[in-house]
C-alpha cells in the first residue's frame, strides 16, 4: 500500500515536471480594483486617449470649466470687432505668442469657434483633446508622451495610467518652460531641532 502510494507520488512528480507550464502572463501585482480605477479616473476628470494601440492611457481633464468663446466670437459681431477695440488693445492683451515664429491666434484656433482647434491630423481636436493638435507638428514628443518618456504620470506606477495634457506643463502660447530658481535643501537651526 505504502509502496503503491510512493510510486503514484513519484509518477505525479515526474508528470508535473514534464508537463509544460503555460507562459507566465503579466498581471497587476497590486490588483487595482475596477472601483479604484473609476475613482481615480473621476478624481482626475480623465478621458481615455482614443488612438489605436494606446488604449490604456487616460489624460487628465482641465480643473476649471472652459470659457465660452462663442459668447463674444459670434459671426454676426465680426463686422463690429474692429470698431470696438482700438488697435493693439484687443481683449486677449495678456496673451503674447512665442511659438514657432509667425503664428497668430488663428494658426491654432478656428476662427468661427475658438474652442475648436485647427489640426493637421484630427479635424475635431478641441481644447480638451489639444494633445492631438500639438502632436500634429511635434510628432516625436507625441510618441514619447504616449509611450511614457515625455510628460508626467499622475497616478502611481501600478494600475490605471493617467497622464497630464500638454498644456498643463507648457503654456501653449509660449511653450518653452520658464527658468526656475532651484530650492536649497531644508535645514533647521540648532534651536529649532531642540524643540522636539
Amino acid at each position, binding site marked *: 500500500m505504502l509502496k503503491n502510494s510512493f510510486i503514484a507520488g513519484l509518477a505525479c512528480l515526474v508528470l508535473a515536471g514534464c508537463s509544460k507550464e503555460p507562459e507566465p502572463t503579466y498581471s497587476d501585482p497590486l490588483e487595482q480594483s475596477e472601483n479604484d480605477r473609476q475613482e481615480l479616473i473621476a478624481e482626475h476628470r480623465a478621458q481615455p486617449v482614443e488612438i489605436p494601440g494606446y488604449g490604456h492611457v487616460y489624460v487628465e481633464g482641465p480643473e476649471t470649466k472652459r470659457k465660452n468663446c462663442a459668447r463674444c466670437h459670434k459671426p454676426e459681431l465680426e463686422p463690429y470687432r474692429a470698431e470696438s477695440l482700438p488697435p493693439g488693445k484687443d481683449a486677449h492683451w495678456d496673451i503674447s505668442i512665442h511659438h514657432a515664429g509667425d503664428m497668430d491666434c488663428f494658426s491654432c484656433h478656428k476662427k468661427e469657434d475658438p474652442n475648436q482647434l485647427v489640426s493637421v491630423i484630427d479635424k475635431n481636436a478641441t481644447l480638451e483633446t489639444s494633445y492631438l493638435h500639438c502632436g500634429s507638428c511635434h510628432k516625436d514628443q507625441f510618441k514619447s508622451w504616449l*509611450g511614457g*518618456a515625455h510628460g508626467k504620470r499622475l497616478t502611481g*506606477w501600478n*494600475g490605471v495610467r493617467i497622464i497630464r495634457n500638454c498644456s498643463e506643463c507648457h503654456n501653449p502660447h509660449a511653450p518653452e518652460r520658464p*527658468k*526656475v530658481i532651484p530650492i536649497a535643501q531644508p535645514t533647521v537651526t540648532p534651536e*529649532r531641532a531642540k524643540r*522636539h
Partner: protein
Amino acid sequence: MKDDKGNKCGGCSGCSSSDSFADMALKKKGSRRGALAALLGGAATAAASSATAAIATDEEKELKRIKRNEFFQKYYRVMDEDERAVTIKRFERKSKLQYDVDATIDDTSARPNTLFGYAFNISKCEGSRKCIDACITENNQDRTSNMAYIKLFEMEEGIGSVHEGDSEYSHETPVDGKYYMGTQCFHCENPPCTKACPTGATWKEPDGIVVVDYNWCIGCRYCEAACPYFARRFNWKEPEVPKDEINPYQHYLGNRMRTKGVMEKCTFCIQRTRKGLNPACVEACPTGARVFGNLLDPDSEIRWILANKKVFRLKEDLGTEPKFWYYMD
C-alpha cells in the same frame, strides 16, 4: 548588592553575587544573544535601582527598556510574523515616547511579479531640486547635517562624468549649454554593497530594492566603500528632525527613524512603492524627467523607454547592473 532574581549566595560580597548571576545567564539554555541580553538586563536593573530610580519618570524608564530591547532584537530576515509584530509595536511606542509622533510602521513584503526600475531624462531635468526636498521630507532624513540621498549635478554639455559636475549651483536654472543629472542609489541587480557587509544587514529584496536593517547594521561603512556610485549615507550623529516634520507613514526597511552610527540609503521609497504609489522624487518632479515602474510589466512606461530611447547607465563596465537608466529625447 541585591538582585530580584533570587540569587542564593550566602550574604557574600557584591562581586561574587554578580559572578554567579553571569554564570546563571550563560548556562541558561538559549542563544548567545539571549544570554547577553539577560546579563546586561540584570546589570542595568541593578544600576537603575541603585542610582537613577529616584529621578527617572515612568516614560523615561520605558524608553530605556525599549532601547535595550532594540539593541538585542533579532535580524529582520529571521524574525517570524509574531516577532515582527512585537518589534513594530515597540518601534511605534518608541516613536511616541521619543518624538511624540503616532507613527505607523508597516512591513509590507515584496509583491510577486514586480521588479522596480527607474529612468531619468537628462534632456528634461531643469535642476529645480524639488526631488531632493521631497526625498528629505518623505524619508525623515537628518536636517542638521544636510543629508540627501539624491544629488543633482549641473554638467557641461558633452561631458558625461559626474566628477566634473557641480552639485552646489545656486542660480536660475536651466542654464543654456548645461544639463542636469541626478544620482541616488541605483539598486543594482548585482550589488557590491551587500557583498561587502560583514553582518548581512543590507540585502536585495525580491522586488529589486536594496534595503538596510538599521538594527543589524554595525556602522562599519564597508558598504559605503564598496558602492561605486557613492549612494550610501552614514549617520555620524543622532538624526534630528523637527517633530512636526516627521513623516508618520513609515516602513520597517524604509523611512523609520534611524539612530546614530547606522547606514542608510534611498529605498525607492519602499513605504510608498510597495503600495502602488510612485517614489516621492518622481511625484515631486515638475518636469516628468523621472520615471518609475515595473520592469516585468511589458506595458509599463519604463519598458517603453528601454525599448525606444537611447539609454545608458553609469559605470556599466563594472557589471553591477544598476536598475537606473538615463535617457535623452
